[in-house]
């Protein structure tokens, strides 16, 4: 069962449009799911039962009415009160608030999501890699992307979706790109490219420091983040008896990545979008 990848699942399945993902993620980061959506997700109530409680139920009033109607007992109500909504729940709440889904639709989507055997991040990255002729790299790249997204969520405190749209970054735009090469049993270069505003926000979130501009510390933060993720990936693949060393991270301003066996993925977060780059050789030239 997947947790924290509901938005990714919905995008993969064509239930949300790629151009709407960024806006929905921004809203979901500011939204706290209410009891009805939580009750639906936890399987405590069906869509039909929720609708029977009241026309527009929410908050404690919803719990009281559900209790009066014999639909929830005291233990279940306490369970919902103590639940900290995760990003799946908050994203579902936004879709419901935006009237993009009904409760019935949400119920069927949750059910299909729970039965979904594949990792939604791996799936989209593998499909993108195969679509651009990188069949041989597809498994490695999708494994890395999954670890990257997981780490990004953990360290940057944001929901994340790998978007299916094409990335069009203007070379002239004010941006920064960091990369790091893995050498050994696998040779692969990974990197992050972002316009300066998003780059700065990533640095702030990773460091918990009040960084005001893209300076040496901001660049260092993103290099260190990439280094940590690549290190975790190196440990992961060492279980397949693939040993790699990490090269020094590199940085470049205002340029676009160009390398062999390259894939550039648009990553949407609650504070903007950036590119995750994976390639067979270096794309940051010093």
């Amino acid at each position: 069962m997947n947790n924290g990848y509901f938005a990714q699942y919905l995008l993969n399945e064509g239930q949300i449009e790629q151009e709407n993902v960024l806006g929905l993620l921004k809203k979901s980061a500011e939204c706290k799911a209410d009891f009805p959506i939580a009750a639906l997700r936890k399987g405590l109530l069906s869509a039909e039962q929720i609708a029977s409680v009241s026309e527009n139920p929410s908050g404690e009033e919803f719990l009281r009415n559900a209790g009066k109607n014999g639909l929830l007992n005291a233990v279940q109500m306490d369970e919902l009160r103590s639940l900290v909504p995760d990003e799946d729940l908050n994203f579902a709440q936004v879709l419901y608030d935006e009237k993009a889904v009904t409760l019935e639709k949400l119920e069927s989507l949750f059910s299909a999501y729970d039965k979904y055997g594949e990792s939604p991040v791996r799936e989209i990255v593998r499909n993108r890699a195969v679509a651009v002729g990188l069949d041989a790299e597809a498994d490695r790249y999708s494994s890395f992307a999954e670890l990257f997204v997981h780490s990004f969520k953990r360290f940057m405190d944001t929901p994340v979706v790998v978007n299916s749209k094409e990335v069009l970054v203007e070379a002239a735009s004010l941006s920064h790109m960091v990369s790091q090469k893995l050498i050994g049993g696998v040779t692969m270069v990974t990197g992050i490219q972002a316009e300066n505003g998003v780059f700065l926000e990533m640095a702030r979130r990773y460091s918990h420091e009040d960084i005001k501009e893209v300076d040496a510390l901001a660049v260092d933060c993103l290099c260190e983040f990439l280094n940590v993720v690549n290190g975790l990936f190196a440990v992961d693949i060492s279980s397949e008896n693939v040993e790699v060393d990490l090269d020094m991270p590199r940085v470049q301003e205002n340029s676009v990545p160009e390398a062999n066996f390259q894939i550039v993925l648009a990553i949407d977060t609650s504070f903007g979008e950036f590119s995750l780059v994976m390639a067979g050789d270096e794309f940051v030239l010093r």
Partner: protein
Amino acid sequence: MEKKLKILITDDSQLLRKKLRAELEGLGCEVIEAENGKEAVMKDLQEKPDGIFLDIVMPEVGGIEALQVIREVNPEIPVIMLSSAGTPQKLMETLKMGALDFIQKPYTSEQIKKALAAIRKKVE
């Protein structure tokens, strides 16, 4: 009263040094810093720290090379490897070379406390 430990942090990341310095100073240590392996070797000789936290991936002289030199000139000093490159092979290699422990980045406060206790035990 416990001896105030002098700890050398060696990492090319400014962020890592800043965070680890705060962590170690919070635990009552005196902290000195080096940005690469070459500086670490020099500071080990000049400042005579009680223990070293040593990264692996660094410019000029990396952590493995630095560990080798440090162990030759100062075989008793406790060195904790603190690196993202924590594969079993790297772990075995550095422990064989005499490192006291290996912490995979990202570290936790608990791991640092434990490492510091190990350094103290070795020193006292």
